[in-house]
């Protein structure tokens, strides 16, 4: 049984109040809170073995290098990557995707080649491809969604064709919560000779993800959305693909032999990690992974299915509340986007904040999806390991208060 109260005890920030109310933090799709183990790991690094890595001959450098590389091994294990050198540390999922667009895309894509995306992509899995397409003359194609925010199978089966060089798709929508059939999409893409990039920023933190089972070529995610510090992203890439790519950023660390005229590149994965990396945050990210492994990702997923199901039920009873995305908790993650009548999400968010309830309001870096849904913006509540059913009750009650608050204006 998932012990949410015990989990909550590990997160110091949950003790604080906001506007005199207990914090109800429901903005986990944006970033998650940090357990004390992660905060301690950061402090421990700076207090005991802060040093630059990979080059120093002294004890501190060796310790820091060991801990940094230890996290790489933990990440590889966490997503079941076949080899540790297939894990590259970046600043965030956005940088991971940009790395692929630059280092792989610019080398292999030509005029007329196609990249298949979906209308539900976060800007981070859209703009890098727009930039690349403009540069090399590639064409972007988009898979549409049905009324419940699921990808249209007919669409992706039709769009992934002989000209497709890459399919870049989100594993789980940061707005709709839809969990996409990435494994099936990857199988078709490979059959037709394309590579597959999975934006896993919303899936790796919330469900068991196995890159070998998905059979994807690239997988990108961010540490801060899974209890880790900000400033650490991950790119998993298949070894064979990584070996055929050019470097992303040039500088220290990523080289082997340098003359004034030319250079050769370091081995994987360091070829793609130019300059001093974010050592402290990578080390502390290792503590976040330990924490999640301790809970077990199956349990984390089970807890969130429970919360999502409960939220769909409780929020579904609020008059005039429109919920976007799949109606069944089993096919979606713990992300619920909604609108309350014709009230603007910013107004909803501001009033909820006065109750200490933190949600996101806006376009969620998915403007094309907003347009597809026919809205300017939505509110969004998103859950994680420390959220409880009573916080969803608080959200529901808060939303009723929002209606009362703005309703008042018409009668005064």
């Amino acid at each position: 049984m998932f012990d949410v109260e015990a989990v909550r005890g590990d997160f110091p920030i949950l003790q604080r109040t906001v506007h005199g109310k207990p914090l109800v933090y429901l903005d986990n799709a944006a970033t998650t809170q940090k357990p004390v183990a992660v905060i301690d790991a950061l402090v421990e690094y700076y207090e005991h073995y802060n040093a630059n890595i990979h080059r120093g001959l002294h004890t501190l450098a060796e310790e820091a290098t060991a801990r940094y590389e230890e996290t790489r091994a933990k990440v590889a294990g966490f997503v079941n990557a076949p080899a540790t050198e297939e894990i590259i540390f970046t600043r965030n999922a956005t940088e991971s995707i940009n790395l692929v667009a630059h280092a792989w895309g610019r080398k292999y894509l030509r005029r007329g080649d196609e990249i298949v995306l979906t209308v539900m992509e976060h800007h981070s899995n859209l703009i890098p491809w727009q930039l690349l397409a403009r540069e090399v003359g590639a064409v972007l194609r988009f898979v549409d969604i049905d009324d419940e925010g699921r990808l249209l199978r007919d669409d992706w089966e039709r769009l992934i064709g002989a000209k497709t060089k890459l399919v870049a798709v989100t594993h789980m929508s940061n707005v709709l919560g839809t969990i996409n059939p990435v494994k099936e999409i990857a199988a078709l893409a490979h059959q037709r000779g394309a590579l597959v990039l999975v934006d896993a920023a919303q899936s790796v933190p919330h469900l068991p993800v196995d890159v070998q089972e998905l059979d994807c070529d690239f997988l990108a995610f961010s540490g801060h959305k899974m209890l880790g510090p900000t400033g650490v992203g991950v790119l998993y890439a298949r070894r064979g693909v990584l070996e055929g790519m050019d470097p992303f950023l040039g500088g220290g660390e990523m080289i082997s032999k340098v003359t004034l005229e030319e250079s050769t590149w370091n081995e994987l994965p360091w070829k793609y990690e130019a300059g001093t990396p974010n050592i402290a945050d990578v080390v502390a990210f290792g503590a976040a992974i330990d924490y999640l492994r301790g809970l077990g990702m199956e349990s984390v997923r089970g807890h969130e299915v429970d919360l999502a199901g409960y939220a769909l039920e409780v929020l579904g009873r609020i008059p005039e509340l429109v919920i976007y995305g799949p109606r069944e908790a089993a096919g979606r993650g713990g992300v619920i986007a909604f609108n309350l009548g014709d009230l603007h999400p910013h107004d909803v968010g501001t009033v909820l904040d006065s109750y200490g309830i933190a949600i996101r309001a806006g376009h969620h870096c998915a403007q094309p999806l907003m347009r597809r849904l026919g809205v300017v913006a939505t509110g969004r509540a998103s859950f994680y390991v420390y959220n409880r059913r009573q916080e969803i009750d608080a959200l529901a009650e808060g939303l009723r208060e929002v209606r009362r608050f703005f309703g008042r204006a018409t009668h005064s």
Partner: protein
Amino acid sequence: MPPIPEPQLDDLYRELILDHYRNPRNRRALDDPKLVGEGYNPLCGDEIEVHVRLEGGVVSDIGFTGRGCSISQASGSMMTEALKGKSLADVRSLIAAFTRMMTDPDDSAPPAELGDLEALQGVAKYPVRVKCATLAWHALEEGLRQGGK
């Protein structure tokens, strides 16, 4: 759950603001506007278009269209009311005074020329909402720039 913390929220959502939100004034496009300006808030996707008709250097009619939150809509509505009949010099002076009120929350006494617009002063304490309040005003400024005057 306890009632809404009134003083705090009411500082932002003054009755006058809610009234303009529910019953926006001059919420329409003009047939033959002299100036047209668009404002866009990338944070929330809100858009406002402001139309101005001038006669003898004076705002003879003004309207706005678009969608947005209560603050942006109320601010647009109140702006159009405040500007009707004003000279372009007065319009510029009002834009400056309003912008100052929004960007300097310590400026405790907004100038009298702002009139009802003073109700929006509380927004300055909510940094993410300031752009909502200034959206219509930026659209107006854009219109003035495009008008080349």
